[in-house]
Each structure stands twice: as structure tokens, then as C-alpha cells.
């Protein structure tokens, strides 16, 4: 991965953030169950249930409860939130990540919502840049599948146990890195000419990966990049790769 720059260049925080607005460090954070606001029973229950799994919690934007948990125990804690009768966070609204730049850890953010109890919770895991690995929650919510793939694609966070962890938005052979990292330049790392050349040399038919269909090796029929109604005319025609041995 070509994203080593963010670790190497630690920024100088003394010269910036001198405006009238609170900086991140000044935001009060509650460090223990004693200071948990009475408003959110889930946070209290989490502190009681996982005293060493919950790292800290805070309230953002007025009324949004954020809980920082140990990345090692993400499936355990989120599974508990999903299954336990009083919690039932059955709707995983979002999985995303935030890179704050400057070598700080990347946060993986889970946005939960409980349809029966009408309660929201945001769970965050902080991953240091040299260990961007976390357990996948696809076993709890199937809907996390693509959301985790997107985080993997754009941030380079590996989700262990994910059934199909591949790039989802960028091309499979994208060589410039993970675009939403802070050290990734807006226009990409390669020159425009190089990007254009790379784009056009990629073969659309390379994307047929029978492996992703399963163990079978199916017969490839239409493979045009231009759609089904002109599939036969687009070059590959009917191929019989795979043969009979796969069946």
C-alpha cells in the first residue's frame, strides 16, 4: 500500500486550530459509568455489561450518543446490542470510516438504530494506521456486506471474516491506493495521461471472475460491455471456457 505518508509526517498542532471554535481536545469526554447521562439506558447497560470493552463515550451534536469500544470485541458487543431483548438494534444504518489525517487512528463508525425501541446509537472503533483490521459484522447484519467492502475500498480497512472482501467502487486493479485517506491527493497519484492509459488498457472482460460466482465454472456467453441486446456482437461471443469438468 502506498499510504505510508500519513504515519511518517506528524503534523504540528500548535500552529493551527486557534479559532474561536472548540478544538477536538477540548470537547469533554466522559470516562466512566459515573458520568453517563441518564438519558440513554443503552450506554449505561453497555458500561455494566462490558466494563473493559467500552473505552469511553460522549454526546455529540446535542443528543447523539457515541460509544468508543475495543476493536477486538466489536462482534461481541454489536452482537449483544443486536440480540439483547432490551436493546434490539436491528437496523444497521451505516458502516463507514473517518480518517482525521496526521497519522491519527482511523475510526470505523457503526450507526445503529432500533426499530422497535426507536433509539439510535453510534459505535466507534479506533484503528491505528499500522493495524487496520477489524472483525466483520456481516454475521450479524447481512446489510453490512457492501458497506464494509466500501470502507475497505476507500480506506483500506480489512474486515476479517467478510465473505467477499474486494474493491467495490474503484476498479479491481486500481493501483493508486485508498482514495478517502487524507494523504491521497484529490486528483489521484498518477498523471492524467497515465490514468487515461490505464483506464483504457483494462479489459472489461477481465471482470468475469467465475470464482465469485462460486466453485462452479460456468459457460461464458454474452460478454459485451455494451449491454445484453448486443452481447453477441461485442467481441467474445460464445466461449466454452470451463468445460465439463466443473460440473
Amino acid at each position, binding site marked *: 500500500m*502506498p499510504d505510508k505518508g500519513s504515519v511518517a509526517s506528524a*503534523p504540528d*498542532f500548535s500552529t*493551527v*486550530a486557534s*479559532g474561536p*471554535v472548540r*478544538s*477536538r481536545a477540548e470537547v469533554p469526554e466522559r470516562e466512566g459509568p459515573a458520568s453517563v447521562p441518564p438519558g440513554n439506558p443503552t450506554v449505561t447497560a453497555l458500561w455494566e455489561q462490558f466494563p473493559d470493552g467500552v473505552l469511553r463515550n460522549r454526546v455529540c451534536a446535542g443528543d447523539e450518543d457515541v460509544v468508543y469500544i475495543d476493536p477486538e470485541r466489536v462482534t461481541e458487543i454489536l452482537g449483544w446490542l443486536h440480540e439483547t431483548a432490551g436493546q434490539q438494534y436491528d437496523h444497521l444504518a451505516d458502516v463507514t470510516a473517518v480518517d*482525521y*489525517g*496526521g497519522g491519527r487512528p482511523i475510526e470505523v463508525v457503526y450507526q445503529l438504530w432500533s426499530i422497535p425501541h426507536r433509539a439510535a446509537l453510534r459505535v466507534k472503533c479506533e484503528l491505528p494506521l499500522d493495524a487496520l483490521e477489524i472483525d466483520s459484522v456481516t454475521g450479524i447484519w447481512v446489510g453490512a456486506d457492501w458497506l464494509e467492502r466500501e470502507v475497505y475500498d476507500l480506506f483500506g480497512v480489512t474486515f476479517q471474516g467478510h465473505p467477499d472482501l474486494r474493491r467495490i467502487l*474503484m*476498479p479491481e486493479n486500481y*493501483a*493508486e491506493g485508498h*482514495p478517502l485517506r*487524507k*494523504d*491521497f*491527493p*484529490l*486528483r*489521484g*497519484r*498518477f*498523471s*492524467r*495521461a*497515465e*490514468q*487515461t*492509459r*490505464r*483506464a*483504457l488498457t*483494462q*479489459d*472489461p472482460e477481465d471482470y468475469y471472475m467465475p470464482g465469485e460466482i462460486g466453485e462452479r465454472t460456468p459457460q461464458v456467453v454474452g460478454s*459485451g*460491455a*455494451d*449491454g445484453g*441486446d*448486443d452481447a453477441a*456482437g*461485442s*467481441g467474445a461471443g460464445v466461449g466454452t471456457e470451463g468445460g465439463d469438468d466443473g460440473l
Partner: protein
Amino acid sequence: MGVDKPGVLGAGTPAFLTTRLDFVVNWARRNSLWPMPFGTACCAIEMMASAASNFDLARFGMERMSFSPRQADVLICAGRVPYKLAPVLRRIWDQMMQPKWCISMGACASSGGVFDVYSMVQGIDTIVPVDVYIPGCPPRPEGLIYGLMMVQEKIRGESLTRHGELRAEDPLAVGRPRADDQEVSDLTGPFGNSTQQNQVSGLVDTGAVGRPEDRLP
């Protein structure tokens, strides 16, 4: 035999006309343009609006949207084209039969628009040759119709005797970028202020890597 029947200009006139072959061919071509709608984003919605009753593209002989490139005459690239889509666009263009024309509809297709980013083609003229650029974000349906009429104007000036010159295609160039490296960097150089800005204003200056020729080692 043809004398008794009324001719094209009424009774008594001969049932034939003399004209230039170029004129007839161009007349036929320009009044039955079949567009290949390569619609990706917002502009595609305006293209659909152009085809609907209020604007009625059919008045100009273009009601038959040809979703198959083999039968299409004019490629309307409506919307932004990422690099991932570029080979698809190029392949569709290569699949279209000569004579063929290309319209770049909207700011994103013509120049990348606001998307001066890592994933976007900065103007499809680096990929395929473009005949008419339609400005707008997105262009109004009137704009698209005007662009198609400009293609018609262009066809009016073409000649069969110059067919080889106007419609020459190098078979080796199929699937390649239309522009060479120098031309691509000329066409896609940063402009405006978007790329001159820093990423995050508050805490960290992330220092975007300088353009344009930086490469990974």
C-alpha cells in the same frame, strides 16, 4: 409511363428530380439520426425529458433511441464518465458503424465539470472524438436538441468524395486513447480554484501532492 402520373411537384411535372448525390445522402442521414444514448447521470434525465412529450425529440427524426451501438448514428454521452467507465465508452464508440458522430452533453462529459478528481475522465474527448459539445449542468432539453441540430448542420456540409478523409479510422487505434499523453495533460490541466485549495481547514494541512506529473516510484 411516368408521364401520366403526377410528379413530385404536382400534375404535369416529371416524376423525377435532379439533385446532387451528396445532398440526397446528407438529407437522408441528417433526418433519421438514431442516437445511442450513453446516459450516466443527471444529463440522462434531461435526455429522457427531451424524449418525452413536452420536447419531443421525434420531431427531428431521432425518436428511435438505439440502445444497440451497431444501429446507432450519433453517440450522446450524457453525464460524467469515470475512468472505470472509459473502456466501455470507447468500446461502444468502436462498435458503432461509420458514419458516426458524437455529442458530449454537459459540463462533466465535456471537461470533467466540478469533478476534477481522481476517478473522473476530464473530458471524453481524450477517449473518443467529439463533434458537438453542449454546455450546461445539465443542459436543458432545448440545448440537447440544438446540439443535435448542430450535428445535422455538420452533416449537411459533408461530402461522399471526402468520406475517406473525414471518416478515416486507424484500426490500430481501436481501444486506445484518442489523445496522446501531451494532449491529455493539456486538455486536463487543473483550472479553477478547486484543486488549489487545501483539504482540511482546521487542524491539519494534508498537503496535496503537486501536479501534474507526480508518479509513484
